[in-house]
């Protein structure tokens, strides 16, 4: 067996045997010696990739394409030293751009007597063997199909093979991918279900499809995270009138062909990762190294240096105590990493589709992270002293508090490290979580150890104790300077937030930041014993305020009011058609406008009314200068925003609403007295 491995960069994909609506499948051209043959590519299970209404089948990430190579049989009288395999591979890799690719490869394998093993490349064998586990099982020519209108129906007895029977009975999900090109409308995924001992498929044919007599395709059966492919061939049975009705859910999905743009979705169950059995030691080592590198990240480095600074302060402390501090810190990092790993594993087990970095997909998490880092940064800038308060909590003795403090610092270092891991270690950690639980736990433990290692080294090695620099002004300067990497990380997180949830969410997070600054100021005042009771109360209030403004994704049940961009033409057409129209002249910098939008216009009552009475909502956005809108405003006798104009159905006289709106004002304006 030989295999071609394609590893496109993140976000890019190559295509399957049937590329779908567009695309070109990967093509292999072999040049072998006489008598030798190369088989077809053993394709892995593809993903459905939807971009803007076009559906393709392809692969993201590492893709292994095995091919069986058969050398010439017997003694063909050829005397050569070695068996040379030449390959020209052509593929198309796309993301937002498509780049055709081509490469030449050559493999030279030595001849040997039958039965002897010359050498084994363990890695290659394993990669190919794993890829072959997902090879298609051919069920042969037993299915029938018919097309009535544009509905394709296929039926196949589940007893086609023992394996197929057991597989389909226990299946978590089923899917059908056509191999016959240009036959099916790929936009609507085929509905596949098992009923009355048959596997049944319903799909839509392409509008411009030529009539076809044979249909071949792949049935993907997903079971406990493993996908198996069965290739079926169906023959046209023109006399067949299918009597089956898809169960509920399938009928709905057939009718409702809504696909969102730009999503690459793996349809079939959980990960399609082939279960490699990595060397545990290697994984642990990589985890350890990764953890060590984490110390250099802008999120973690400041925290680490804080710790080192504290160590420097404790030069007189006994070596035993220093060692204990080191262990406490390590315990903190390892425990927190394990905690995170457990959460991820539990979530994965309950079926959530998560990879590492999933926590960054939640605007709430991103905002809270940004808050945490900002707060830490403020502390390091010298605005207030964090940690001083911890010793005062309860009557903890100095020694204990130091150990608890070290544990807490370790935990803190891990928590602030998580946003920094996503950009650089996302793939590695996602891979780790996809492995069996014991492997994931080992990797995360070694990550924790790696993260703690520099500090642990300083704490354990006695010689380091004396080498530590004397405490001095440098400590203060270092702390203050290191606040800046933390602030930069905040900026990055806020950028992510803005892209995820828009400028409004960003504004809320920034307000939260201001409130945090206020909280920090109150906290410092409390530490300096100024302002009496106000200080701690103020801190608390400001913190609560910051939490309240955390942007929360809107519930999808709210009916959203859709607006159309205003133009003279749109207004005229609507008036000619006798439609009722609501025109909102607004601008982003106009606070009254935004308040009215939030409080009055974008409310369910108004949305309902507009929907049920076919009211056209025109929005004239004057945020940037627009001569057409300026003219319109002047025509209505105004020179600024906001301006609300109502046209009742069938009337062309504008009715002006007051500058302060309520939902009632809007709705009643449309109703004739």
């Amino acid at each position, binding site marked *: 067996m030989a295999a071609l491995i394609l590893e496109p960069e993140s976000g890019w994909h190559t295509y399957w045997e049937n590329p779908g609506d*567009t*695309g070109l499948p990967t093509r292999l051209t072999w040049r072998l010696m006489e008598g030798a043959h190369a088989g077809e590519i053993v394709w892995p299970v593809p993903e459905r990739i939807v*971009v803007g209404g*076009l559906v393709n089948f392809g692969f993201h990430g590492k893709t292994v394409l095995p091919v069986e190579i058969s050398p010439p049989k017997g003694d063909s009288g050829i005397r050569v030293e070695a068996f040379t395999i030449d390959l020209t591979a052509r593929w198309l890799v796309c993301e937002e*751009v*498509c*780049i055709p690719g081509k490469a030449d490869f050559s493999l030279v394998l030595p001849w040997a007597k039958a039965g002897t093993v010359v050498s084994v490349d363990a890695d290659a064998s394993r990669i190919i063997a794993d890829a072959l586990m997902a090879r298609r099982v051919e069920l042969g020519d037993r299915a029938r199909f018919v097309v009535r209108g544009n509905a394709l129906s296929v039926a196949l007895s589940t007893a086609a093979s023992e394996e197929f029977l057991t597989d389909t009975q226990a299946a978590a999900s089923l899917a059908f991918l056509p191999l016959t090109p240009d036959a099916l409308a790929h936009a609507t995924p085929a509905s596949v279900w098992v009923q009355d001992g048959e596997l049944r498929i319903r799909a839509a044919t392409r509008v411009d499809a030529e009539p076809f007599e044979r249909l071949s395709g792949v049935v993907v059966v997903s079971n406990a995270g493993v996908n198996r492919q069965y290739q079926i061939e169906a023959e046209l049975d023109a006399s067949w009138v299918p009597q089956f009705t898809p169960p509920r859910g399938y009928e709905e999905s057939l009718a409702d062909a809504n696909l969102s743009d730009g999503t690459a979705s793996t349809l079939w169950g959980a990960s399609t990762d082939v279960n490699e059995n990595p060397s545990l030691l290697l994984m642990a080592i990589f985890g350890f190294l990764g953890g060590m590198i984490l110390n250099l990240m802008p999120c973690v480095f400041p925290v680490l240096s804080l710790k080192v600074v504290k160590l420097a302060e404790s030069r007189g402390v006994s070596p035993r105590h220093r060692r204990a501090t080191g262990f406490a810190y390590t315990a903190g990092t390892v425990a927190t990493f394990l905690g995170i790993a457990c959460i991820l594993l539990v979530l994965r087990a309950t079926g959530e589709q998560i990879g590492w970095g999933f926590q960054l997909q939640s605007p709430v998490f991103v905002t809270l992270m940004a808050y945490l880092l900002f707060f830490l940064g403020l502390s390091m800038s010298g605005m207030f002293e964090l940690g001083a308060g911890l010793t005062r909590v309860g009557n903890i003795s100095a020694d204990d508090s130091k150990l608890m403090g070290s544990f807490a610092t370790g935990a803190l270092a891990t928590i602030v490290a998580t946003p920094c891991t996503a950009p650089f270690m996302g793939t590695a950690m996602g891979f780790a979580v996809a492995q069996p639980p014991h492997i994931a736990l080992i990797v995360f433990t070694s990550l924790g150890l790696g993260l703690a290692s520099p500090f642990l080294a300083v704490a354990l090695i006695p010689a380091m104790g004396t080498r530590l620099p004397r405490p001095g002004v440098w400590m203060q300067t270092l702390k203050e300077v290191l606040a800046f990497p933390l602030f930069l990380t905040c900026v990055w997180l806020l950028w992510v937030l803005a892209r995820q949830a828009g400028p409004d969410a960003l504004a809320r997070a920034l307000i939260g930041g201001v409130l945090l600054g206020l909280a920090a100021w109150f906290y410092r005042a409390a530490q300096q014993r100024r302002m009496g009771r106000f200080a701690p109360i103020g801190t608390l209030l400001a913190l609560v305020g910051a939490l309240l403004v955390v942007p929360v994704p809107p519930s999808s049940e709210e009916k959203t009011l859709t607006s159309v961009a205003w133009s003279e033409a749109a207004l005229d057409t609507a008036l000619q058609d006798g439609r009722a129209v609501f025109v909102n002249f607004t601008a982003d910098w106009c606070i009254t406008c935004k308040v009215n939008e939030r409080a009055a216009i974008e409310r369910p009552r108004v949305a309902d009314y507009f929907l049920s009475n076919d009211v056209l909502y025109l929005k004239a956005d004057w945020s940037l200068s627009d001569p057409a809108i300026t003219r319109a405003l002047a025509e209505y006798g105004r020179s600024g925003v906001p301006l609300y104009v109502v046209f009742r159905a069938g009337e062309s006289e504008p009715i002006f609403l007051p500058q302060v709106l309520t939902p009632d004002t809007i709705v009643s304006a449309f109703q004739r007295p």
Partner: protein
Amino acid sequence: MNRFLKRVCLLTFWSIAVFAGATFAEPFDLSKWSFPDLAGDEASLDRWQGKILALNFWATWCSPCLQEMPELVALQSAYGDKGLQFVGIAVETDASQVAMMAEKLSVNYPVLVDEDVALELASALGNSDAAMPFTVIFDRSGEVIFHRKGTVGFEEISALVEPLL
């Protein structure tokens, strides 16, 4: 920074500037390039001299290309009579497939079909890995004013082209 290093930097800077200038400052000679259109007739690219010529390299198997085409069609209908001319170059060998796709997308500008020579032209214009879509815009005197490996949008091309019409 010592003087030697300064000199090296300066030299590098000027070499890059001269090279970049040389590549694009002079008008690109389009008369040497011609491709068959959908009807099979040869069309030389200097036929549209004097217009603002936008060459769009695409292919029927390239989904980003198909997605951006409606925007190109919109640009052509908005600015075609003011001097903007889009010309599609389909990097393919089967003209009938291209014709079908062009009709499906209501393409309102000439489409030429060629594979090998088209790729040479793309390479000469700075796209040597055949990335698609690839759009190059020439001003009325034939100088390249825009080139991108990737999709373009209505707004940005509008903004670029309007001052020149």
